[in-house]
C-alpha cells in the first residue's frame, strides 16, 4: 500500500482520485471557497480538517454535485468533470455519507440499502446476496434483516456506508463521521475505513477532531477561511497542535475550570426520577443526584441513553412516572414548564431548531421565547417591544452574535450565532440553574471559547449547571462532577480531574468503571 506516497499530480501510475485546481465558490457578499487546490491519491484515506464555518461543507457539496464552483476545475480519475447534480457524481463512482443519517427507521437494513437503487439487483435474494458480499468483503458486520430502528448509531453508519458502496462508489466522502460516535465506535469505523482502503477505495474524511484525523489519515489537508492552507501533509510528520494552529490561526481553546466554586447549597435535587416511554420501558430509571450552587455537573453517555428524557423531565416538558425534583429545596415535580422557567431554570436545548428558536421570527421575538412572562419582554399582558428589542441588542453585543440587526429572522443566522443568541438569552434574568445540552455543538472555535467563558463566569457567581455533551473533552474539562448515564441509569461517577476520554468512552458503553479506578 502506498499509504505515504505524496501526491505529485504528474507521472503517477494511477491518476489521482480527485484533483481540484483553483476551486472558488462565491455567495453574494462572501467567498465560501477560494482557490482550493487539492489532490487526493487513489486508494488513500485523505482527511480534510477545518473548523466549523471554514468552508468544508461547501467544498463537499461541490465535490458531490450539490453545488457548482464558480471557478476552477475538478478531475476525477484524471478526467475533467462537471457535476450538475449528485446523480452525476454517483455515476462517476462518488458516494457521500452525510453527518445526519438518511435512513428510514421502519425499514430493514436491506430495504434501506436497496431503496432508490432497485434497478441494480432488484429487491429480493439477489440484492441481499450482493449486500452480504459487500459487507463481507469490507469487513462490515450487519444483519440485513433487522429494522434500522433497532440499530445503534455505529451500525446505522455502516448501513449508510453500505448504501453508498451498493451504488458502486469507489470514492467515499464522509462528512464528520465521528461526530455521533463514542471512541470505541470510532475505532470500529476506522477499521472499516482501513479495510476499504485495502480494497483500493478512496476515502475523503471531513473532520475537525485532530487526534482522529492523525490516527486514520494517510494525507491531511487543512482549510481555513475557505482556502487550503496546507495540503498533502503527512500525519507522521505533524502534531495535533500544529494542525490546530493551521486550522484556526491560533491556539485551540481548552475547556477547563480554574478553581472550584462549588458550594454546599443544593440547587437541583433529583430523587429516584423515573420516566417511562410509551411501551412502559423506563428510559430514565431511578436517577438521583444533586447539583449545588456554583457546580457544573456533567453527564456523559452515548446519545439516546435517556439524556433527552431526563432534560425534558427537569424542564417539565414530560411528566415523570416516579420520583421528585426539588429546586432550592422546593418540590417542583408537578410544576408546568413556564413556572419552572420563571423560578430561574435556563435551558439551552440539544436541538436548537426544534426547541430553542422560532426560525421564521426575528431575533428580538426569539429573545422573548421562553421568557414571555418576564421583564424586559413584557409589561403585564402586553409585549414590551422596546424592552425586548433593547435587551436583544445587549445580547447581540455581549455574546458577539454576528448579525446585521435584530430584525433578521433567526433562521438566517449561522448555527454558531444562533447558539450564542440562545446562550445569551438563557443566561439573562439571573438563572439559578442552567440545563445546557450540547452548548457548543456546531459553533466555531471563537464562539466555543466565549460560551465556556460565560459558563465559568456564571458558575463563579453561583449558577448551577447540568451539562450534557457528546464532546468528551468539553465534559471532562468543564465539569466539577461527572456522571455516566447508560440505558437511563446513572451507572457511575468519575473524577474529571483524572479521567481520559478513552476511559470515559468505555464507561459510556457499559465497561466496568469501578474496577479500573
Amino acid at each position, binding site marked *: 500500500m502506498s499509504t505515504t506516497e505524496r501526491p505529485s499530480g504528474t507521472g503517477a501510475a494511477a491518476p489521482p482520485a480527485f484533483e481540484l485546481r483553483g476551486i472558488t465558490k462565491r455567495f453574494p457578499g462572501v467567498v465560501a471557497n477560494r482557490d482550493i487546490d487539492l489532490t487526493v491519491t487513489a486508494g488513500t484515506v485523505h482527511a480534510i480538517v477545518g473548523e466549523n464555518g471554514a468552508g468544508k461543507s461547501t467544498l463537499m457539496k461541490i465535490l458531490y454535485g450539490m453545488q457548482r464552483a464558480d471557478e476552477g476545475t475538478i478531475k476525477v480519475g484524471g478526467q475533467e468533470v462537471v457535476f450538475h447534480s449528485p446523480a452525476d457524481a454517483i455515476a462517476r463512482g462518488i458516494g457521500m455519507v452525510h453527518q445526519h443519517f438518511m435512513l428510514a427507521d421502519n425499514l430493514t437494513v436491506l430495504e434501506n440499502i436497496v431503496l432508490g437503487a432497485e434497478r441494480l439487483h432488484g429487491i429480493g435474494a439477489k440484492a441481499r446476496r450482493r449486500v452480504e458480499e459487500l459487507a463481507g468483503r469490507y469487513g462490515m458486520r450487519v444483519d440485513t434483516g433487522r429494522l434500522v430502528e433497532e440499530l445503534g448509531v455505529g451500525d446505522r453508519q455502516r448501513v449508510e456506508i453500505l448504501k453508498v458502496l451498493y451504488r458502486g462508489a469507489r470514492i467515499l466522502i464522509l462528512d464528520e463521521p465521528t461526530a455521533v460516535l463514542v471512541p470505541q465506535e470510532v475505532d470500529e469505523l476506522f477499521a472499516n475505513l482501513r479495510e476499504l482502503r485495502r480494497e483500493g477505495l478512496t476515502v475523503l474524511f471531513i473532520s475537525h477532531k485532530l487526534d482522529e484525523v492523525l490516527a486514520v489519515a494517510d494525507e491531511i489537508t487543512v482549510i481555513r477561511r475557505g482556502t487550503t492552507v496546507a495540503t498533502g501533509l503527512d500525519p507522521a510528520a505533524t502534531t495535533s497542535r500544529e494542525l490546530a494552529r493551521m486550522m484556526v490561526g491560533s491556539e485551540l481553546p481548552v475547556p477547563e475550570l480554574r478553581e472550584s466554586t462549588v458550594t454546599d447549597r443544593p440547587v437541583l435535587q433529583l430523587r429516584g426520577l423515573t420516566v417511562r416511554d410509551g411501551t412502559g420501558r423506563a428510559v430514565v430509571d431511578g436517577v438521583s443526584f444533586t447539583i449545588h450552587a456554583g457546580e457544573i455537573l456533567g453527564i456523559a453517555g452515548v446519545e439516546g441513553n435517556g439524556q433527552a428524557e431526563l432534560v425534558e423531565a427537569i424542564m417539565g416538558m414530560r411528566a415523570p412516572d416516579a420520583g421528585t425534583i426539588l429546586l432550592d429545596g422546593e418540590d417542583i415535580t408537578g410544576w408546568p414548564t413556564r413556572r419552572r422557567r420563571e423560578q430561574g431554570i435556563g435551558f439551552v436545548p440539544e436541538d436548537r431548531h426544534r426547541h430553542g428558536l422560532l426560525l421564521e421570527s426575528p431575533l428580538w421575538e426569539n429573545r422573548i421565547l421562553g421568557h414571555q412572562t418576564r421583564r424586559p419582554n413584557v409589561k403585564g*399582558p402586553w409585549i414590551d417591544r422596546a424592552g425586548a428589542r433593547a435587551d436583544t441588542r445587549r445580547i447581540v453585543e455581549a455574546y458577539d452574535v454576528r448579525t446585521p440587526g435584530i430584525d433578521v429572522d433567526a433562521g438566517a443566522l449561522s448555527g454558531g450565532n444562533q447558539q450564542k443568541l440562545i446562550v445569551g438569552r438563557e443566561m439573562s434574568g439571573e438563572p439559578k440553574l442552567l440545563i445546557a445540552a450540547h452548548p457548543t455543538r456546531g459553533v466555531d472555535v471563537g464562539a466555543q471559547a466565549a460560551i465556556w467563558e460565560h459558563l465559568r463566569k456564571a458558575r463563579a457567581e453561583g449558577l448551577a449547571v447540568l451539562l450534557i455533551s457528546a464532546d468528551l473533552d468539553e465534559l471532562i474539562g468543564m465539569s466539577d462532577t461527572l456522571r455516566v448515564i447508560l440505558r437511563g441509569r446513572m451507572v457511575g461517577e468519575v473524577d474529571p480531574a483524572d479521567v481520559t476520554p478513552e476511559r470515559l468512552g468505555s464507561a459510556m458503553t457499559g465497561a466496568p468503571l469501578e474496577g479500573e479506578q
Partner: protein
Amino acid sequence: MNRLKNSPLALTILAAVIALAFSAAVTSIVLSLSGFNPPSTFQAMIEFGLEPDSVVNIVNRASTYYLAAVAVAIGFRMGLFNIGVDGQYRLAAMLAAAVGGAVALPPVLHQAVIILVAMLVGALWAGIAGLLKVTRGVSEVIATIMLNFIATGIIAYLLQNGRLGTQVAGSDNIGTEPIASSGRVGGIPYPGADLKIFGLVLLAVAMGVAFHIVVERTRFGFDLRATGLSPSAAVASGVDAKRMVVVAMLLSGAAAGLIGMPQLLGSSYSYGLDFPSGLGFVGIGIALLGRNKPVGIVFAALLWSFLDQSSQILEFNEIPKEIVAITQAAVLLSVVVVYEVVRRLGLRWQQQAVAAELADRDPSPKEVAA
C-alpha cells in the same frame, strides 16, 4: 430590487399581484376557449362591480367574509385547522336569532345579547373539537367537519313549526321569530345606492383591529404565534399546549359566531332556510389568500366579494358565471405557490445579508469578493 429585498410587505404585495395576473391569464384562456372575448368581459365585470349598488353589496358581503376569514385565521396562526367555522356560524346565527326574536329588550342591550349568544354558541361548538383534541387526541380537522354535519342536523331539527321555527308569511320559508326593531342595526347610506351598508361592517373592522392587537402585541398572541411557528419550541418555552388548543378553538368559534350577525341584524332579522350558508368554507380560502394577517384578509375579502358580485353581469352576456369560480380557484392555487416561493426568497436574501455582514466585519479584507 434592493427596496424589495428589505420589505416583506412589498414582497407580499408583489406575490399577490403575480397570483392575480396568473388567475386573470387562466380566466382569459377559459373565456377564449369558450368563445368569449376576455377584455370586454373583464371590462363589463369591472364596470358593473363599480356601480353604487354593487359597491354596497361588495362591502356587505366582504364584511361577513372578513369575519369568517378571521375566525379561520385565529386557528391557522397557531396551526389549528378549524374547518368547522361553517357549522359554528350557522348554529350560532340560528340560536342567536331565536333568542333575539324571543326576548324584548331595550336597544343596545338587545343587540348585545344577540351578539353575545352568537359568540357563546360558536365558541362552545368549536370548543367541543378543542376538548376532543386535547383529551382524546382527535384531529380537529375531522372533529370540526363532523360537527358541521351535526350542526346542519340540529338546525334542521330545530327550524320547524312548533320548535324554534315559524312559517314566514306569504312564502314556504320557515324562519325563527323575527327580531323586533329594538334589536336591529340600521344601515349606513352610500351615495347613489338604493341599498345600505350594514351597520355591523364596523363590527368586522373592530374585529380586525382586535385580532391584530391580540396576536401581535400581547403575551397571549405571542404564545399563539409561537405555537403555530414551532409547537416543539413553544412547549419548551413554557406554553401549555393543551390549554392553547382549547383557548384558540374557543376564540376561533366565538369569532365564527359573529359571521352571521351583519346579515341577521342588518337585513334578515330572522334565521330562515334562505340564510347564507357556506361562508365558513369561503373564509378558509380568504384567510389563505390574506396570509392570515388582519390587513391582508381585508384585501382578500374585498377581492372575493368583488368577483362574486361582478360575476352577476356575466349572465346578462350569456356567459356562465361559474367562470368566476375558476378565477377564484386559480387565485388560491397560485397564491399558495407564489407565497411559498416568496418566503424562501426572503429567507435566502436575509441569509445573504447576514453573510455579507459577517464578511464586512471580517478582519481580513481578502475574504470579500468585490
